């Protein structure tokens, strides 16, 4: 069955979860964000330290990430907390209200006591929670799913088991009309010519080459040479011979489909099919960007067991080897190590991933959700001022 029961939003998107969240727009109100969320059971606090004293490019990137998170299809209602004269919270509410979304903002400033502001937040959240419980679901086709593809804590098996299996899944869902988003620009260095060649047209291919170049230049400025540092001595001991081979192991999460679009961090794709998002290799920031870009579910391959989750999107953990699965059974959703010791094929695990995605879209709780792994951090490009 390739359908799922989702929550249709006023802007046309469809969620696989129905969360009520509180999110801060500036780091100063991070603790108040947690405090107000704790006052209403089931409300999720999304806390980060960005938002103030940023460069223009970071202001834009932070805004996109906040808008994409607060207005996400998995979110039923969002309370947005700001501070002082900063109008980011009102700005977000204005944009999302225009789309008919259920949102409210509170700015902490000298006109209202903290306890009054918290009371206002608590009341709004109680109503939002009650409202969310009465929202209906409807049947939707997998072509409405956007799946983020991520890896973290990779090992020598990542490129052999879990990542190619994710690639097999990605090709299947793309064939069914759905969307998958590959990320982590740094991991693509060395294979940019391969992905660029898979682009639907020259402009998309060129944009991909441009973001890789931009990333390398930023790394250069910080004194890092990605090309000469990879594969690392440890990688070589593990069997990786060239940079191309190492990067292929990562980008093969995207299978062999045509690259339809290259998007900026936290941006929503306008095309369906296989997409690339410009994100850093750091898994927390990358997952936050993928989710802000509309991914309702994230697939996450790991060899060492990185616990990274998301506050609003179910993250499905795919272990690369059976030892990890035996040691952390509560933490891994799918064991791709069966390719090594049970001789299952990459396609077999790809199918298992697809079944799991449908089941999770229908409400099955993932390991990261069960353990409330709700990491969130926004990618910063420049110095804080």
């Amino acid at each position, binding site marked *: 069955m390739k359908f799922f029961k989702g929550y249709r939003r006023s802007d046309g998107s469809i969620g696989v979860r129905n969360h009520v969240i509180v999110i801060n727009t500036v780091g100063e109100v991070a603790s108040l964000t947690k405090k107000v969320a704790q006052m209403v059971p089931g409300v999720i606090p999304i806390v980060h330290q960005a938002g103030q004293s940023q460069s223009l490019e970071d202001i834009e990137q932070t805004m996109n990430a906040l808008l994409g998170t607060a207005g996400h299809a998995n979110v039923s209602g969002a309370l947005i907390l700001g501070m002082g004269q900063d109008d980011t919270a009102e700005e977000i509410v204005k944009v999302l209200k225009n789309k008919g979304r259920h949102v409210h903002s509170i700015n902490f400033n000298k006109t209202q006591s903290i306890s009054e502001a918290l009371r206002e937040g608590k009341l709004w959240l109680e109503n939002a929670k009650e409202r969310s419980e009465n929202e209906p679901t409807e049947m939707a086709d997998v072509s409405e799913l956007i799946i983020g593809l991520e890896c973290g804590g990779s090992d020598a098996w990542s490129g052999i088991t879990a990542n190619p299996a994710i690639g097999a899944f990605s090709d299947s869902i793309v064939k069914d009309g759905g969307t998958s988003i590959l990320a982590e620009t740094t991991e693509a260095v060395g*294979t940019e010519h391969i992905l660029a060649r898979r682009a639907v047209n020259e402009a998309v291919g060129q944009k991909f080459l441009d973001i890789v170049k931009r990333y390398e230049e930023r790394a250069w400025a910080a004194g890092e040479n990605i090309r000469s540092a990879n594969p690392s001595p440890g990688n070589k001991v593990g069997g990786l*011979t060239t940079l191309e081979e190492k990067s292929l192991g990562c980008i093969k999460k995207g299978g062999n489909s045509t690259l339809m679009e290259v998007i900026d961090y936290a941006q929503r794709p306008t095309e369906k099919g296989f997409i690339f998002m410009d994100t850093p290799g750091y898994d927390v920031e990358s997952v936050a960007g993928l989710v802000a870009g509309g991914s309702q579910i994230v697939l996450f391959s790991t060899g060492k067991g990185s616990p990274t989750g998301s506050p609003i999107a179910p993250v499905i953990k795919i272990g690369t080897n059976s030892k990890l699965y035996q040691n952390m059974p509560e933490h891994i959703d799918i064991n791709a190590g069966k*390719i090594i010791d049970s001789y299952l094929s*990459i396609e077999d695990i790809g199918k298992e991933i697809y079944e799991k995605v449908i089941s999770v879209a229908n409400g099955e709780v993932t390991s990261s959700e069960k353990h409330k792994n709700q990491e969130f951090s926004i990618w910063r490009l420049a110095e804080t001022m």
Partner: protein
Amino acid sequence: MEQKIGALMLNSMDNVAVALENLKAGESISIQGKEGLVKVFKSIPYGHKIAVHPILKDEKVIKYGECMGIATETIPVGHHVHVSNVRGLNKEDKTAVTLKGGVEK
């Protein structure tokens, strides 16, 4: 008795397979994705690559159906494929219309 599977080909176009366990010199292994047996020339640790087709000097080494490097010497079937006999791509390789061997994509 069913032959154990010692290595995995990630794509049917590949000329290398990945060892799923430590392979011993002289043993014959079957490979997932390929018919017949391959005799291991020298020991190969798990996670490393074994040649499943002969690869001539200056030919592409293909894994995942893509070019992952260039052979710096001729590599016979069953041999270890690694840094001693493969180099990464340079700019000219990437812009070249065709490289010898392998499958152009």
